[in-house]
């Protein structure tokens, strides 16, 4: 019963890690995970993907999901 959490770019640097494995709890949303890990509310400009698809901050999670947090993208 776990969720993989990935961090990219400035978030990877700020947290000092590229990945966490956290305990999955029934009814957990994306922003619940952020609050659990960071101990503060999730800023509105953070981008989120679940299982490599963009999603909303209030999206519900399920056991085994891969969650990713990252800033605005700057490729191309």
């Amino acid at each position, binding site marked *: 019963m776990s969720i993989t959490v990935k961090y990219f*770019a400035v978030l990877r640097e700020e947290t000092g890690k590229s990945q966490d494995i956290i305990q999955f709890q029934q009814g957990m949303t994306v922003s619940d995970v952020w609050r659990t890990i960071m101990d503060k509310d999730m800023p509105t400009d953070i981008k989120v993907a679940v299982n490599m698809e963009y999603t909303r901050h209030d999206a519900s999670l399920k056991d085994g999901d891969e969650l990713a947090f990252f800033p605005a993208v700057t490729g191309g």
Partner: protein
Amino acid sequence: MKVEITESVFNPYEVIAQYQSSLDKDGRFGATASFVGSMRDFNDNQKVTGMMLEYYPGMTEKHIEKICQNAIEKWSLLDVMVIHRVGEISIGDAIVAIGVWAAHRGDALDACKHILEDLKSQAPFWKKEQTKEGQRWVKNNTSGYVKSEE
């Protein structure tokens, strides 16, 4: 369709020409639009000396494939390819190359622009620039026009 992420320097025109020769669609496409983005030595009013490009292995490829698929459906395209560099990048290096093959020019050109804009606004890549004052994460992509920055 071809989507490739690479850590190696690539010659964009060789990649486009090679992919085209693999298509076996001579006589079907009348129009090929392509775009190559290269690393400039200047950004946001500062001299840049190098760059690191981070991505999200798995999601990045998947998302670019989706962007291309959407374009193929919206315009009438025969084929699309995108190659994007990651890792350490030097001034003048190609960062991205897009090739779009269609029967007609309007479809090819409009789709090429659209794929590029989608890629820049959605595909998970992050640039960290090296300047004389140190490294900095690029916060946002520019609008794409000189005039809007003046």
